[in-house]
């Protein structure tokens, strides 16, 4: 008995000691963290090929990457990282969505727009030391046609079960540095599409070597080389000293997962990270008050909107009703929910894209006019409709629930009773694509910076199929369809611009949507770095970032 109680007692004492030692240890370790260099170099730095330095970019973000093989993912967090590791044939310019040479030095297209020839940069090597050449490009494009897992390939080039190649009928290496693409039909956005990060060229040797594990061992030609990945914690990259483009100033890039927005911001304040996205709006003022921090806004490449289901019998099928709803919604008021990062939208595509029609005059907020239109349509006494919304914030809609409630209040003024149906994101997508809604809040972030990527994807009748609709207004206008199809095979950008402007006018009159906002998501960064230009497409390589 006596012995046993000593055991209990000494266990308690040991645990207590443990805690006391713990507190001491905390103080000691913290001297390293206290000096505000984001990466405290450790003396116990064992078994690692690189050592951390002051020139380390530590980027804090809300979620981890899914896979580091860009051809297989659709989430921005994966793309953000792979954009550092891989190069595409052409890249977007830093400040807009026009393209410039990258792995390809120049290119030409045949008169019928079906044959594209790219000349490749010479003497480029993958991070594993193997040569980049035309065969590598061909290998990648062939690989993307082997499985439905390569989401973006299928989606951008129209692959289907029976035709996994989509519109790219043939890719061949005519010599070591030349690749020829033969398309089944002219495709005007082709070049812009090739600039998308999912079409980053991977080392064929590495793909074969790692097989199913390739997504954890990415090898490209980009400005940073992959080191390690601790899931849900961090991804570490180091500088590619032999990069063919601008060699990075930063020695290391670390992507850290810090799920909570508030905690992430405190890390930035504490100096343990030096860049972050996903800020709480209430923290914006704190950044302005802090001498060490600054806000950078990402240019908008998105649109948040309320789609009205035109395929449902009843009020929503009536153009006058949809116009009336457009007039009954006070966008200025809705903008307060965006807390300074929203710009009122009037078209289905953001102004950062070429082809944006700025001459269109938005429906102005006018309750009386709206009531008159409703009466003309036979709904003077009003009606009841449902409004589907997602529970979680989206880049183009930071407060979906409050937005839905505000719309509910506004439509009450014109006798429309709105029932809000809330679902988590996946369910929301499924339900709206099936067409369960009368109206739904939704949004879109662009892929390749081409107007086709907004107008065709979101409002063409081709994409109004129940079950997989991008066009959740189920808006079907033959004239719009004809114009959009024509724009896809017209190579001249001037002509395409005219077509897209006309399409925006028709859509404005038919009013399948209430366009709500374009957002410019804020990022907070430490003032120790400069030269950071966020790109509209949602990610950018970090090799232009300089340390002061």
């Amino acid at each position, binding site marked *: 008995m006596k012995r046993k109680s000593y055991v209990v007692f000494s266990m308690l004492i040991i*645990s*207590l000691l443990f805690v006391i030692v713990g507190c001491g240890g905390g103080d000691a370790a913290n001297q390293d963290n*206290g000096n505000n260099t984001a990466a405290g170099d450790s003396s116990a730095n064992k078994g690692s090929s690189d050592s951390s330095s002051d020139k380390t970019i530590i980027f804090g973000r809300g979620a981890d990457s899914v896979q580091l093989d860009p051809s297989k993912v659709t989430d921005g967090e994966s793309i953000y990282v792979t954009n550092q590791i891989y190069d595409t044939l052409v890249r977007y310019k830093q400040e807009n969505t026009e393209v410039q040479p990258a792995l390809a030095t120049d290119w030409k297209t045949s008169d019928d727009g079906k044959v594209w020839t790219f000349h490749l940069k010479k003497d480029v090597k993958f991070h594993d030391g193997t040569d980049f050449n035309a065969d590598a490009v061909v290998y990648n494009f062939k690989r993307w046609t082997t499985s*439905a897992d390569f989401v973006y390939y299928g989606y951008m080039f129209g692959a289907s079960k029976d035709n996994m190649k989509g519109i790219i009928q043939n890719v061949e290496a005519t010599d070591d540095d030349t690749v020829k693409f033969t398309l089944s039909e002219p495709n005007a956005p082709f070049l812009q599409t090739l600039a998308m990060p999912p079409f980053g060229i991977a080392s064929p040797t590495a793909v074969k070597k790692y097989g199913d594990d390739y997504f954890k061992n990415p090898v490209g030609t980009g400005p940073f080389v992959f080191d390690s990945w601790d899931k849900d914690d961090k991804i570490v990259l180091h500088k590619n000293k032999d990069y063919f483009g601008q060699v990075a100033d930063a020695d290391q890039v670390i992507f*850290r997962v*810090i799920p909570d927005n508030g905690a992430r911001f405190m890390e930035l304040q*504490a100096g*343990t990270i030096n860049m972050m996205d996903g800020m709480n709006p209430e923290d914006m003022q704190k950044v302005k008050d802090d001498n060490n921090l600054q806000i950078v806004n990402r240019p908008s490449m998105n649109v948040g909107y309320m789609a009205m289901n035109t395929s449902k019998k009843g009020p929503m099928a009536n153009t006058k009703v949809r116009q009336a709803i457009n007039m009954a919604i006070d966008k200025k008021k809705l903008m307060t929910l965006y807390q300074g990062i929203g710009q009122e939208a009037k078209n289905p595509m953001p102004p950062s894209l070429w082809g944006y029609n700025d001459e269109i005059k938005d429906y102005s907020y006018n309750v009386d006019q709206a009531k008159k239109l409703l009466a003309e349509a036979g709904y003077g006494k009003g009606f009841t409709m449902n409004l589907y919304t997602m529970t979680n914030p989206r880049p183009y809609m930071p407060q979906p629930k409050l937005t839905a409630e505000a719309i509910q209040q506004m439509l009450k003024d014109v006798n429309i009773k709105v029932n809000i149906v809330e679902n988590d994101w996946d369910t929301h997508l499924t339900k709206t694509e099936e067409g369960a809604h009368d109206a739904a809040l939704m949004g879109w972030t662009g892929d390749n910076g081409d107007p086709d990527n907004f107008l065709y994807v979101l409002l063409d009748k081709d994409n109004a199929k129940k079950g997989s609709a991008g066009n959740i207004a189920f808006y079907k206008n033959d004239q719009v369809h004809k114009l959009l199809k024509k724009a896809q095979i017209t190579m001249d950008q001037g002509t395409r611009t005219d077509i897209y402007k006309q399409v925006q006018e028709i859509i404005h009159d038919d009013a399948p949507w209430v366009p709500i906002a374009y957002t410019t998501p804020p990022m907070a960064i430490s003032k120790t770095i400069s030269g950071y230009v966020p790109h509209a497409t949602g990610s950018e390589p970090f090799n232009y970032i300089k340390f002061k």
Partner: protein
Amino acid sequence: MINYIIRRLLLLIPVFIGVSILAFALLRLIPGDPAKSMLGNKATEAQLQSLRAELKLNDPLPVQYASYMKDVIKGDLGKSIKSHDSVIKEISTRLPATIELSLFALIIAIVIGVLAGIISAAKRSSWFDHLSMTGALFGVSMPIFWLGLMMIWLFSVTLHWLPPSGRLSVGTHLQTITNFYLVDSILTGNWFAFKDSLAHILMPGFALGTIPMAIIARMTRSSMLEVLNQDFIRTANAKGLAKYLVIFKHALKNAFLPVLTVIGFQFGFLLGGAVLTETIFSWPGVGRYVYQSILSRDYPVVQSTILIIAVMFVLINLITDILYKYFDPRIRYD
């Protein structure tokens, strides 16, 4: 005793089946489509269909369940739909992270909770009693996310004493063996990493330990009070035993049984309930992972992880039951 343990272990089989059916069925009751959530809204219908076929989502549910269980029995917990990695690999780093955090939180909770409970009971109605019981009341009602953010603000942003989050500082290298960083750093003799990971676990450990600490303190106090009023304690006092001996040797052991029950339960809850703490302190653990997997309808991950946690829960209860016998030799399990 051995018989009892074997019997209890055999009971794992129905628990295993029950939990697996429940997890399987509940997941599929939530609306949503794993193929959709994996490919996003950019996928074409053809791609979705081929993925659904690949994941065998079109099979009838009993067929899906049977094929899942067949794999589980063979030791194959399946592949994550989202990452394509095996579930075992996915949780091999995350489960140790959660267990390490939960154990640490529990140790803090037991040490402080039991001591506070004993002192409160021994010095009933003293200022200490009032203070610690008021503290315990705050403790049970404290929202972890608020407490966590306040701790980060105070100890990291303002005082710069502790690192705000994560398991190790950026730049600290540790060769992992068990993925319990405190253990690994001792095994490899890497004292810098030990101090660093200890500094990292302190705040989340305290935050996670607050509620169990408060519950344990209250339970210890009330259980001690009951025992302290019994005759044998009066006798012990009357024969002039030192007060600490009476309390620690005679009273505590008799009062510990209900406390032990609470501890066993709390550990189970800590394992499953660390989601908030893991989120606030960016702790790459299994709670957050399962939560995200539920949102993305990653069926294999959720099913298998629930199974593992359920088994651990049962084992912890078994250990608690065996410990009962130590504290109360009158208990017989035959």
